């Protein structure tokens, strides 16, 4: 071949490649979804916590049973299950044909290996009652697994739905020691995605798991960019660096600020959505301290704050108003409890009848010479909490209640929650799938603001006893009655000021299809998404 013809051939090849380049790039773009998170997803150890990010653990690892609409438990890696009449033995029939992303079969042996690894490190998971209740595990045959509990514990199935610690790593991903508490060999799960690359501070890349037993993801690749700042994330969306914003709203731990979200809501060519309630923003009112020890004061606070205005102007309508501790959409929580309506006159009347009066033209009410004042504690750099606290201070001042705002950094704030040094304090319920059982269970533990807030209630012991009963109850009707009793008492005793129901939000452009909300806060159904 002559020099000239070789040059022509090279030029032709270059031209051909150059012509193809945009098509290849476009195809790669079409097959890739860009999302962002505030940190790298971590090593993705299914049995460990920080720095593993829950949304990513949920992409790679799957549970035996899943949390569905309204808290309904649905089959997942277990096709079916039976529970013994005493509620202590669970037998799971595992789904056949499921393989981990490296081709290792998913069977009872793998399930037992994971349970054993979690139990070996049970102390780490002591916050989860289910782990403490496990007595033993047994392989009945290659696809049947038995779980024996020490006592009946009804939320067993709910807690098996959790993202961690009870999901399944491939036996080939286990370290030689079999102890996953420190490290794992590789993040290999049965889920629709597999982690293929992590670049610290830059991105994590997932690829669709070709061996996935369920509906395969619509995208071949998912790039999760590391963007710590919520404004940075909005800019990345505006400039097309990412395709999707999905998660909780609000600055700080949220994906984007609520004001930014409402800007997208009013923009043409941008799709937005708000999920159904996933948890509750709530203030605990301390029944064990002056002056909120007095039921009339607690009720007056609930009647005296214009919650609708807070929801409209601070939460910008992104989070609906909450009138009860748990959303009626949560299991056992649709109780028809009457909300405390905004009624300053009724609030004033309650205070008057309880002996709280304005004396000598004072700005604030007093009783027996003691001023009606309390501390409202919040996280100092949380702009939402600060704004709500300021509105409450204003509303309650009009009633003659002095509210001292105590804004502190997060750890000090959490220490107050634990120690009960607050009049009112912000908090959240744990959300799906923990509500209501895990949250109620935590009310019995002194380390929680809820325990501290309820401590002054005359029926506190009774409430704790009923919570203990409901957790081991095997009778559905009895359980519903117990929840009714517990939640009604807490509502009537006005130890909570429910503010709004926390939601997830999403923002994307119309080319992206199949975007929907998961049933829990941290499960993002990327696998249903595809490009038109």
């Amino acid at each position, binding site marked *: 071949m002559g020099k000239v013809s070789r040059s022509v051939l090279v030029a032709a090849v270059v031209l051909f490649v150059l012509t193809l380049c945009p098509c290849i790039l476009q195809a790669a773009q079409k097959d890739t979804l860009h999302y962002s998170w505030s940190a790298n997803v971590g090593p993705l150890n299914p049995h460990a916590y920080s720095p593993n990010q829950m949304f990513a653990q949920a992409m790679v690892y799957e549970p035996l049973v899943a949390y569905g609409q309204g808290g309904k438990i649905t089959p997942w890696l277990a096709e079916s299950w039976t529970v013994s009449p005493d509620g202590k033995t669970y037998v799971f029939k595992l789904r056949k044909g499921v393989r981990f992303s490296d081709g290792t079969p998913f069977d009872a042996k793998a399930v037992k290996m994971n349970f054993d690894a979690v139990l070996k490190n049970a102390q780490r998971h002591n916050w989860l009652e289910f782990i403490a209740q496990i007595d033993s595990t047994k392989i009945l045959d290659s696809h049947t697994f038995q779980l024996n509990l020490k006592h009946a514990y009804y939320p067993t199935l709910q807690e098996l739905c959790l993202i961690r610690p009870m999901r399944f790593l491939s036996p080939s991903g286990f370290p030689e020691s079999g102890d996953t508490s420190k490290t794992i060999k590789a993040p290999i799960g049965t889920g629709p995605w597999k982690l293929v690359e992590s670049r*610290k501070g830059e991105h994590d890349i997932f690829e669709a798991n070709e061996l996935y037993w369920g509906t395969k993801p619509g995208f071949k690749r998912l790039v999760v960019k590391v963007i710590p700042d919520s404004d*940075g994330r909005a800019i990345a969306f505006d400039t097309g660096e990412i395709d999707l914003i999905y998660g909780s709203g609000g600055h700080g731990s949220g994906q984007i600020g609520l004001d930014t979200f409402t800007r997208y809501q009013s923009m043409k060519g941008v799709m937005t959505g708000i999920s159904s309630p996933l948890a509750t923003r709530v203030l605990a009112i301390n029944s064990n301290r002056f002056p909120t020890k007095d039921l009339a004061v607690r009720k007056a606070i609930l009647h005296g704050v214009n919650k609708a205005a807070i929801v409209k102007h601070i939460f910008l309508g992104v989070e609906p108003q909450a009138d009860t501790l748990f959303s009626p959409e949560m299991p056992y929580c649709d109780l028809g409890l009457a909300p405390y309506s905004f009624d300053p006159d009724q609030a004033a009347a309650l205070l008057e009848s309880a002996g709280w009066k304005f004396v000598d033209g004072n700005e604030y009410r007093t009783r027996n010479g003691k001023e009606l004042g309390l501390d409202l504690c919040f996280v100092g750099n949380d702009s939402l909490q600060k704004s709500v606290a300021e509105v409450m201070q204003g509303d309650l001042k009009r009633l003659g209640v002095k509210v001292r705002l105590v804004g502190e950094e997060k750890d*000090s704030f959490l220490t107050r929650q634990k120690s009960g040094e607050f009049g009112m304090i912000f908090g959240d319920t744990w959300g799906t799938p923990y509500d209501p059982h895990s949250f109620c269970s935590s009310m019995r533990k002194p380390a929680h603001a809820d325990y501290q807030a309820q401590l002054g209630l005359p029926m506190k012991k009774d409430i704790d006893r009923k919570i203990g009963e409901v957790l081991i109850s095997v009778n559905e009707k009895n359980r519903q009655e117990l929840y009714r009793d517990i939640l009604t008492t807490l509502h009537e005793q006005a130890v909570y000021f429910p503010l709004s129901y926390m939601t997830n939000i999403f923002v994307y452009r119309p080319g992206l299809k199949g975007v929907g909300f998961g049933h829990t806060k941290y499960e993002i159904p990327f696998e249903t998404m595809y490009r038109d």
Partner: protein
Amino acid sequence: MLRYIAKRLLILVPMLLAVSVVVFLILRLGQGDPAMSYLRLSNIPPTDQALAVARQELGLDLPLAVQYVHWLGKALTLDFGRSYVTGLPVLEEILYYLPNTLKLAGFSLLLTLLASLPLGVWSALEKDRMPDHLTRAVAFAGVSMPGFWLGFLLVWLFSIHLGWLPPLGIGGLDHMIMPALSMSLMSMAINTRLIRGNMLDNMHARHVLYARVRGLPERVVVGKHVLVNSLIPVVTAIGMHVGELFGGAVVAESIFSWPGVGRYAVSAIYNRDYPVMQCFILIMTGIFVLMNLGVDILYAWLDPRIRLEGGSNR
């Protein structure tokens, strides 16, 4: 000179030791609890039992003095412990991110010098005329405008509005332009005014007058006798600018999602990741001290008067 350098380097040892004690104490005397942060990051309710387990895992259950001795013993072998958040060796993490920060700071320094030198000279030569007024206005804006605000304005203009530059992340030169500009504008403004001031001072110096008397062309007078002498204080200023640039990197890296050590340190502060904060502060102290030493040596090398003074002392 060598003795001087050795002495300065030796001072670094007690200085780092003192800094380590102060940092160790200040971090632990402050409010807050890293075990609590650890549980918060892990979405684990902070029960007393969970806190006790976390404290034990993180070595926070030991007395403060014991914690410090443990830490120091390991630090002497360059083992600065593991991050509470990622569980990875701290030094390894910092050394992973440090090159990115150095790249950004280096580029910012280059921008500072490339812009401030001609602007300073120009404004001095055109004193009280339009170029001088213009550079004064730019310098005023540059000194007054916070870096983060400039960063957002740049993103709005060049990424959102014009679509010319990528808004965030790391990549080619195009990724560096906006963060570097937002970091360096203040140094640029200060340097421009400094060079202008020095130039004007030197223009009236005796040696410049003699040069003119000797009939040297104006180009040589300005270039050789005014400018070179005006740059000596700039060397000192550069030493300070490096500090400013590292400080600015903390903000710019967060805005532009630049995976540098500044952003890593910010997240460590937020998460009360003590081992990371300690190691970061020690490394930064070392860099600052070495940078100042470098500036002093350079200064002596550039200015014969200082060398001679040093010599006469000997």
